[in-house]
């Protein structure tokens, strides 16, 4: 995984499958960044990932809870069909917003 900070937004680029193994790694790296960089919003970028299971739901909901207390928002971009299906079936799309690209998400966050 890779992270980028743009203003008060953290972009998490998921590399490979988002399963329990990777969820633990992402959780740790994301939380350090959220604290250190005074992060308000989080973008999960799935451009390098084509699989997610229920562990992915846990890690995304966890980050959402962390930032939403301070009014932050979480979203996911570049979803393939398989990941999109997990979003729909689990109802995750009701909490984690969905945009086509990182730029679209940033534009939306900055428009607040």
């Amino acid at each position, binding site marked *: 995984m890779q992270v980028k900070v743009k203003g008060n937004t953290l972009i998490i680029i998921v590399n490979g499958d988002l*399963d*329990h193994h990777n*969820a633990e790694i992402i959780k740790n790296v994301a939380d350090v960044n959220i604290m250190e960089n005074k992060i308000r919003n989080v973008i999960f970028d799935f451009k390098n990932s084509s699989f997610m299971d*229920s562990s992915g739901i*846990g890690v995304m909901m966890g980050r959402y809870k962390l930032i939403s207390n301070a009014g932050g928002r979480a979203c996911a971009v570049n979803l393939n*069909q*398989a990941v999109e299906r997990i979003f729909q079936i*689990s109802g995750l799309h009701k909490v984690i917003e969905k945009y086509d690209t990182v730029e679209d998400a940033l534009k939306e966050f900055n428009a607040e």
Partner: protein
Amino acid sequence: MNSKREKLYLEIESKSENESLARVIVSAFAARLDPTLEEVSDIKTAVSEAVTNSVIHGYEGNEGIIKIECEIEKNILFVNISDEGVGIADVKQAMQPLFSTKKDEERSGMGFSFMEIFMDELNVESESGKGTKIMMKKIIGGK
């Protein structure tokens, strides 16, 4: 070719790294039935949930062996995933959507629900202190 039965036996160490290995191997085995992309992803998700369940709950992060048995019979894939871990005291409760004994560890409680949704049949046998066996069935080309 699909008239005969084909079998796959696999034993893996209970480690989170092996979750991806398990779903790749099982989906490669299932590829003999010429599944659609959606069916492949269904199988991968269900296997991932079952193996993760053994790693996190069965062995609670400790050492252990997870057994994966697959069988193809006509257009049906059978996948059994078992561990000799702590077992589940109340299987019915564990299978409730959103139920999790590890909410503080950010487990969504969707594992069994996903196995149920993505496969055509799911049965779970478990005994406290003895282990858990998850039995799943997927009909390929069933829709």
